[in-house]
């Protein structure tokens, strides 16, 4: 056997990631979600460049219905172009969703990894800390933060992140507890790996799939959260976001329903797309569901 010198190409090694993509590709709803999401992201990036009407300019009479007078989506209560607002708002909404999810993941993974890896008193303390955040009413807490420190974009992002990292922390901790006991972790330890290396190079990549799924869904819930805060008026008045459009037009919901419905639909479709992608990731990254 050792004498074999066949140079026949061994079937090219496929990384676990490429295999997951294969799974994902065959999942119709996930691909639909991905297509929708790409469209939305594209619109957010290119839209404001191609459609240059300023979202804050009063361009026409208020409450002009969609399609009339050359305004595809109509105008809002101040006569501002709704299409331009949606396109500009997409950027802000997606950026908030993404960066809030990043804040969530950074805090959650750090806390969960430390707790799951070290165990003992460190875990005890970190998990009590996590529970403290879990029992706070999330919307109220974030409202307090925004009200106290001002409604700027970074502060809103931080407020969303700080109230929603607990789920990620708990998932990370439980995955770390599971993977920590596996033999290859012991084997890495036996070849002299430092704790930092064990945590972030050995255990984390193996704990990643559920964390990735959770983070993807986090983007969706962060967008909803932002919409909720803006609806209540806790928003940066200098930028447009979808929630803010709904919030500012909400008094006129009976006279001009479309001013609220259109941004509402935008949020709905975006969050749906993200959820579909998240579910697809779940199926693709979950080894138990993977077909060989």
């Amino acid at each position: 056997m050792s004498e074999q010198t066949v140079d026949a190409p061994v079937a090219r090694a496929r990384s676990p990631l490429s295999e997951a993509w294969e799974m994902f590709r065959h999942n119709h709803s996930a691909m639909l979600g991905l297509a929708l999401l790409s469209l939305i992201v594209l619109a957010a990036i290119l839209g404001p460049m191609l459609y240059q009407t300023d979202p804050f300019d009063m361009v026409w009479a208020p409450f002009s219905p969609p399609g009339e007078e050359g305004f595809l989506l109509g105008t809002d209560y101040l006569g501002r172009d709704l299409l331009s607002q949606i396109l500009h708002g997409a950027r802000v909404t997606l950026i908030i969703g993404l960066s809030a999810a990043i804040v969530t993941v950074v805090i959650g993974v750090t806390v969960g990894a430390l707790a799951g890896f070290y165990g003992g008193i460190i875990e005890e303390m970190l998990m009590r800390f996590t529970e403290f955040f879990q029992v706070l009413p999330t919307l109220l807490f974030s409202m307090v933060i925004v009200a106290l420190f001002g409604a700027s974009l970074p502060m809103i992002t931080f407020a969303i992140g700080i109230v929603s990292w607990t789920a990620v922390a708990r998932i990370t901790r439980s995955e770390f507890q599971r993977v920590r006991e596996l033999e290859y972790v012991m084997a890495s330890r036996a070849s002299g790996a430092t704790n930092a290396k064990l945590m972030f190079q050995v255990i984390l990549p193996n704990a990643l799939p559920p964390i990735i799924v959770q983070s993807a869904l986090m983007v969706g819930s962060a967008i909803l959260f932002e919409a909720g805060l803006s609806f209540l008026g806790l928003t940066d008045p200098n930028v447009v976001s979808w929630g803010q459009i709904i919030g500012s037009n909400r008094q006129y919901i009976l006279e001009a329903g479309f001013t609220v419905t259109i941004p509402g639909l935008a949020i709905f479709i975006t969050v749906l797309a993200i959820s579909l992608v998240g579910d697809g990731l779940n199926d693709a990254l979950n080894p138990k569901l993977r077909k060989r």
Partner: protein
Amino acid sequence: MAPLLKVENLRIELATRAGVAPVIDNLNLELAHGESISFVGESGCGKSMTALAIMGLLPEGIGRVASGSIQFDGEELTTASPRRLRQIRGNEISMIFQEPMTSLNPVYTVGEQIAEVLRAHQGLGQKAAWAQAIELLDAVQIPNPKSRVEAYPFQMSGGQRQRVMIAIALACTPKILIADEPTTALDVTVQAQIFDLLRDLRAQTGTSIIMITHDMGAVAEMSERMIVMYAGRKAEEGPVDQVITHARHPYTSGLISCVPHIMANLTEERHDLTEVPGIVPGLSEFGQDLCLFAPRCPRASDKCLSARPPDVPFGSARSSACWHAEDL
């Protein structure tokens, strides 16, 4: 010449629910440069614990070295800093595990895993480490190493994975290789290949090997000296051929008579396989001042139940911890 590894009066305690139990009780052993020894015994006799203690990898918060010393090349390991231990692990003492199927990290290619050790301990660059990884795969006789280096563990068979584990363990040409039942999970023909490989590599590199096994055949195949462990204590120690032909401890003879022989001529009459009756005592019974093997021993007498037998030397190289060793 001073021994490479010297374990003296080692006592390892495990915290269990029932209290503290000495899983290793007063163990002494020496390992010379280039020597190969085997630890033999049933499951739960403390073989792996000894290995983990040498590596400094006792389960944190549960196991600890209570007393005694472990000296590696004159350096005390029980009091060494974690940093120093990490330098030693994988570089000067390395270990291969029982389960090749789960001992490799599934998300990295085998090449990355070998190269990682080389980068960490030898300070090699990315490229040099990779080249060395291919050479190591070749050394452990994996066919077509240039393309296999990019394979993921799940694309390899158990025997191949164990070869990769050996490649990782030997990457930094350690002075001691601890093999914890390296072939238990593999089938017989692959076992023989792995033993061949280990023997070849040992001859090339001069690495000392500590084999942990309960396979007497493996012992005879691989080692010069064996240490029979029972319930955390050393039962018998000596050169393999002497111990196997003339055991000085009833536990050793029990273990030997459990091994089936393939006879050159099949006859009607077959050797009866004798078992050692009973099981290894639970942890809570460890550490008593008596012979822990006595309840299972055909020769047990009152003396065995009243005092722990001392380690009595026989000749220059052998010793046995049995009150009846003289008569055996």
